[in-house]
């Protein structure tokens, strides 16, 4: 018991320190400059977040995919906010080994990871390659129609 308790500080110190956690506070992003079909990359907690203003075609493709074709089944509705379906907000870190996928590449109108060839669709869902899961959606909310808060 004592030994385990004494070991705890030595392990716990490895976790993110107070300043790192503080720097990971929520951020606000203005969406007005992003035209349809374009995307921006912002950094939150040291992670790149893709904010993509999807075209009608991309949204329709994302909605049309039958769930049984997906390795990690999730509907497009589960990955976007109601009323703001054209906006896709995902953490741009490949769920395989953490590389940054390139937007608007690959066979599914979404993302392509240059490291090990994983391909994500226009909803950021894994479609092909070694990655086991979809690109995660970070916690975010629409403050107004043109502004979101990530975190």
């Amino acid at each position, binding site marked *: 018991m004592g030994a385990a308790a004494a070991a705890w500080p030595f392990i716990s110190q490895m976790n993110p320190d107070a300043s790192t956690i503080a720097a990971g506070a929520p951020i606000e992003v203005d969406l007005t400059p992003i035209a349809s079909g374009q995307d921006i990359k912002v950094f939150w907690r040291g992670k790149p977040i893709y904010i993509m203003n999807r075209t009608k075609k991309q949204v329709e493709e994302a909605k049309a995919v039958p769930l049984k074709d997906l390795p990690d089944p999730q509907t497009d509705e589960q990955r976007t906010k109601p009323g703001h379906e054209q906006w896709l907000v995902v953490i741009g870190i490949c769920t395989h080994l953490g590389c940054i996928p390139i937007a608007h590449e690959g066979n599914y109108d979404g993302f392509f990871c240059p490291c090990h060839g994983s391909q994500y669709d226009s909803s950021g869902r894994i479609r092909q390659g*070694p990655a086991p899961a979809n690109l995660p959606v970070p916690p975010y909310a629409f403050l107004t129609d043109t502004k979101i808060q990530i975190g």
Partner: protein
Amino acid sequence: MSGPSDFQPSHPALKWIERRLPIMGLVHSSFVAYPTPRNLNYWWTFGAILSMMLAVQIATGVILAMHYTPHADLAFRSVELIVRDVNFGWLLRNMHAVGASMFFFAVYVHMFRGLYYGSYKEPREVLWILGVIIYLLMMATGFMGYVLPWGQMSFWGATVITNLFSAVPYFGESIVTLLWGGYAVGNPTLNRFFSLHYLLPFVIAGVVVLHVWALHVAGQNNPAGVEAKTEKDTVPFTPYATIKDMFGVSCFMLFFAWFIFYMPNYLGDADNYIPANPGVTPAHIVPEWYYLPFYAILRSIPNKLAGVVAMFGAIIILAFLPWLDSAKTRSSKYRPLAKQFFWIFVIVCIGLGYLGAQPPEGIYVIVGRILTVLYFAYFLILLPLLSVIEKPRPVPNSIADDVLAKTGGKSAPMVSTVIALMVAGGLLVGGSLDARADDHGTKPPGQKWSFSGPFGKFDRGALQRGLKVYKEVCSSCHGLSYIAFRNLADTGGPGYSVAQAQAFASDYKIKDGPNDQGEMFERPGRPADYFPSPFPNEQAARAANGGAAPPDLSLITKARSYKRGFPMFLIDFFTQYQEQGPDYVAALLQGYEDKAPAGFNLPEGSYYNNYFPGHAIKMPKPLNDGQVTYDDGSPATVAQYAKDVTTFLMWAAEPHMEARKALGLQVFVFLILLTVLLYFTKKKVWANAH
């Protein structure tokens, strides 16, 4: 084998010490009187070579740590400043970086030797397992060391490898956050890796002591695989093994020095001369060559968790080898089937290494899967099966018999295996070079450079003209932030005097301050100032240039490369071809086409270049005939400008290149003499033992 020593020092003072701490007796019994089998071949010298490499790595590493700054914003620059400004910093850094590769090369030979001669079998199981632990520690140390220069490959290698732990069910993400000390690889990660990279070599040294201890309890194995029984089977460690080891070490140092002085970047990756950028992933993330076989296993398996388990399993399985292979005969020399399968296994490992460097697509994935299955089948199916069904040939009665039987001198197999290993090693290394750079551009034509080859020197005229081209053309967009004005007067540089460098500096306006009023001010440049960059930061550079920031040119000739392909990379090892970067830069400067070829969709604001990966470059054609006036009568053509400025940039990337090659020559003369002398000494010492 090593009982209590009967060593008695004669000097009274030494006697006094010896009675209280019998250290001289320990050394004497372990390294002087210690009986070693008389039939050991040169594969057994790799133990001594590894001890030397560990010492070299610790010595150079401790010194580098005195000059290195483990901070995400400063690490890359501090490594470059070690190479440029610290006395012999370039030498120590090359020794340490190349030394890691040499250490792994030697350990692989050592391991394959153990595998071939059955050195893991009873009673040497613990000895073997300690070796596997050392190997694991080496891998951890090597990985963390590669992160410290904080280049692109450092950063992304760290990201990929730490992410392996996210495959652990339930706790994966928490473990990875714990390793990073943040939400991504960052400064806390670099700090702890530095701390551990400094610590682990001493842990390795500790386990090496246990390894040697276990070795001296069980005694050395030998090519015949029979235990030493009588005096006739052994020779004392000193002078016999000592001189043989020294000769082996000296041969190895020749190999080592070839890399240090003539091809320090052959084993590295050009991308690691680009500072780490968390926003851009390099096109191919390739680990150092010594991890490639395991990387190939990881990628062969489509399931993430299973891939990680297989990768670690491929190493851990070695620890169970003594029980997987229960054949009574140790040495594969007397096992006709095991011998053949051993060589197939070596080829499988090298094949996996080659695949680890290839992009994970098409045929490479399929072959990778086959080889992964073969790798595990060797240990799990083949070795247990062979121990049952194989009929070994009779082993000699004793080591003495073995020595007598082959006094005919059978050295041919040894030579051929050395050659086979060299080719194989080259293939492995070449595979990793293969994966570098991008394959979308056209291969640049090879140029003749004054600085290539073992005696290469910079052409002073070209350096001075190149500086002029940089100043008048390139510097409006590209920085040169690692070069200070004082460097222009350095030996091995453009050959200006100190006064000329000072005059050159004073033409520049340098921002300094704050002054007593707390304001920043401008003053004329001094020799100690660095070339000012045209843009205050990367964002400004990006915004002013249509989204593509012009890279700093200080390291550009080392940070760019292109695929050499088989068999060129093998030939490169012998011809010391190191000029991929300069060839590429010179070709790029001349590779502009006015119109993109039909069918090529050139994005707006881009220009077509034959050699740029993807062909669409944001930089407009920078050089035109007659743009820069030369005072020395050299032709004012684009070809000449490109050649001169590339020569200048090669110097900027490696200002001490001439010193490196000059010292290399002296070291080689010395080492060759030493090796020859050691060879004849060894022959003399062993004359009465054969």
